[in-house]
């Protein structure tokens, strides 16, 4: 029986975890662009077939949603920025 890793557990193993200001950058720079391209080409962030890291997040408009509660039906999960 495999248990779903939580997003927090997976996050803790990533090198970017340390710096919240680095993540929320004030200026979009060349290094951010190159990082996006590098991750698009190499993208070993998550392996197909792996359990999707579980999370519970606040929902705009009220309430919360937990990913693992949606088991039984396929989910299309999109990450987007306001800008």
């Amino acid at each position, binding site marked *: 029986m495999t248990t*779903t*890793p939580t*997003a*927090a*557990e*997976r*996050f803790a193993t*990533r090198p*970017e*975890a340390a710096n*919240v200001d680095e*993540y*929320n*950058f*004030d*200026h*979009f*720079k*060349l290094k*951010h*662009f190159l990082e*996006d*391209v590098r*991750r*698009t*080409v190499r*993208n*070993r*962030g*998550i*392996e*197909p*077939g*792996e*359990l*999707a*890291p579980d*999370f519970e*997040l*606040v*929902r*705009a*408009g009220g309430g919360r*949603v937990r*990913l*693992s509660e*949606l*088991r*039984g*039906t*396929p*989910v*299309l*999960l*999109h*990450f*987007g*920025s*306001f*800008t």
Partner: protein
Amino acid sequence: MRFIDVVIRQAHPGPEVPAYDTFEQKLHDAERYRREEAIPWPVLVDDLEGTVHQAYGGLADPTYLIDRDGRVAYYNMWTHAPTLHRALTALMRQGGRGVVMDGIDHVPHMLAAMTDGWKGIRRGLPQSLVELELASPGMGIGLWLGHRLRPVLAPLTLRARPLPTSARVGLAAAAVLAVTLAIRRARRG
């Protein structure tokens, strides 16, 4: 089938949309995002550290297809609807379980982003445009052009389903014809 959107950091900050300092700012933008883009499914807000975004790899504009058992069946960057449609159809064909289409899409689907990406940049003007141009010259202007040409480009670049084979053949033939004519004209000139 369920759809979920997760709002992450400001990708292109600007004077009116600075980098987030508090969760409340992020929640506020998530509400605007849901309203302005008229998103009918749940719009969730990641924490300030980007815990969920980074746990999934920290990619730019990615979409993950998760199967009925909660496993990652497929994902792509620069969210491309026709490719996702194909992946979803393949997943349904195998009972909603397992990996489809080798699991990862390595193609940078920039055409859709070019047609639809101005919305985000526009919110951070002028800083967002200047910084994008400095980081990758031509892309900011390309986004603006893509937005202006949207009525012409959208039927090709913002399709929900893959282009029919006949249309692909037609477009390829038109491209070959255009190049041939251009070469002939250049030789004559």
